[in-house]
């Protein structure tokens, strides 16, 4: 998994509670991404980062925030979880900056919001 770990791997939480998911990489790559995977939708980009403290929104960013205070860590926060945020969340990194380079994905976090 290209030196990418995600924690926790599974989480069950209640509506209205805050949740933070962590993505950690060991290879100092600049570009990191958070996706959610839902049946019938494929993967959709939530937020991405192009460096420490540099982040931007993706296709489905509402209800999510991110932070990147260190190169190796990219945090995804659900300030007040809702049932619609039940999903599998994947972190990814880009090895280089050009668009013809593939992304490498972490193992995923399965989040259930009751």
């Amino acid at each position, binding site marked *: *998994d290209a030196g*990418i770990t995600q924690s926790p791997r599974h989480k069950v939480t209640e509506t209205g509670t805050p949740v933070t998911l962590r993505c950690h990489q060991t290879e100092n790559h600049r*570009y990191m*991404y958070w996706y959610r995977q839902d049946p*019938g*939708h*494929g*993967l*959709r*980009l939530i937020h*991405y980062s*192009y460096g420490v403290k*540099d982040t*931007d929104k*993706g*296709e489905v960013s509402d209800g999510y925030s991110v932070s990147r205070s260190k190169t190796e860590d990219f945090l995804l926060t659900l300030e007040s979880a809702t049932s619609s945020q039940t999903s599998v969340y*994947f972190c*990814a990194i*880009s090895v280089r*900056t*050009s*668009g*013809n380079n*593939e*992304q*490498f*994905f*972490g*193992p*995923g976090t399965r989040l259930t919001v009751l």
Partner: protein
Amino acid sequence: AQSVAQPEDQVNVAEGNPLTVKCTYSVSGNPYLFWYVQYPNRGLQFLLKYITGDNLVKGSYGFEAEFNKSQTSFHLKKPSALVSDSALYFCAATLYSGAGSYQLTFGKGTKLSVIP
């Protein structure tokens, strides 16, 4: 708007037969196209990509894909399917999103089942 379509939710093929998983795209300019595979309870794994040049791209595990600009397609193929190829396959295309970063747009995925 950029989009990637995978018209088949599921493809069934007998072991040893050739397989095709279809993908069409709508991207402005010259596309960068990718195929990824996802095994159960795992993250996505890169299979192959098209950047430019030869329209037939070879990738991992014996897979190949054919880029067809006139039909805006990038179908994934394998001459002889294995049971172990059973997985979820995603086609994707890149879009430049600024600040030197690129966004991947994914299709909805096709579940491939190879029947022994």
